[in-house]
């Protein structure tokens, strides 16, 4: 019993949520093509990943192309990311990076 609870708490630590944010500086913001690139990148990670335009939410599943397309964030807005799972840190780093790189479009 003790072993099980210890294992459970270790798992909780492993599942810790990672957050970060990035300013949308590309001209068109999160329009169609950047949305597709963002979801494609998010899908490479096993972690649960969510995006919001406010730290308070509402949060959107970063792996859903249809939902991300509906976020419609513009240039100058901040994208907030949160991820939980074994590769959460790598996922957040990659997502912030693609926003900073203007989705490789400019």
């Amino acid at each position: 019993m003790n072993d099980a609870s210890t294992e459970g708490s270790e798992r909780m630590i492993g599942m810790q949520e990672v957050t970060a944010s990035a300013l949308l500086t590309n001209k068109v913001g999160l329009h169609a093509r950047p949305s597709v690139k963002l979801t494609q990148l998010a899908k490479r990670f096993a972690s649960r990943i969510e995006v919001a335009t406010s730290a308070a939410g509402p949060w959107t599943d970063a792996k859903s192309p249809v939902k991300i397309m509906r976020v419609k964030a513009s240039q100058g807005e901040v994208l907030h990311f949160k991820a939980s799972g074994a590769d959460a840190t790598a996922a957040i780093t990659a997502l912030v990076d693609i926003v900073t790189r203007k989705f490789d479009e400019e």
Partner: protein
Amino acid sequence: MPASKNVGIVIVSHSAKVAEGAADMVRQMVGDNVPLAAAGGNAEGGLGTDVAAIMAAIDRAWSEAGVAILVDLGGAETNSEMAVEMMPEERRERIVICNAPIVEGAVMAATEASGGSPLAVVRATAEELISA
């Protein structure tokens, strides 16, 4: 080239230009790691759809993970259903026709497929466009 593990996408329109244009959008927006084929127009080169051309498109986009078909108006759907019926039996259950707008559905389905999602998820993503 090894067979793709990603679900393939077939675009069926009454117009060859619509089918090819939608396929261009998929290639430019999603990339080329999803098997993709377009079938547009009837056998005479006019507006319409052609069962044999749809079957050939399914063959070109075939993946062991299956194929999702996006269609425009009525005849495109019935001819696609006929094309599926005429495919080898072991393939039929791995071919679905999505209830989704043709252009948006093709881009969304391909985006989902490019991440390696199974056929049911690819279809659900395309159909999510009209469910919310």
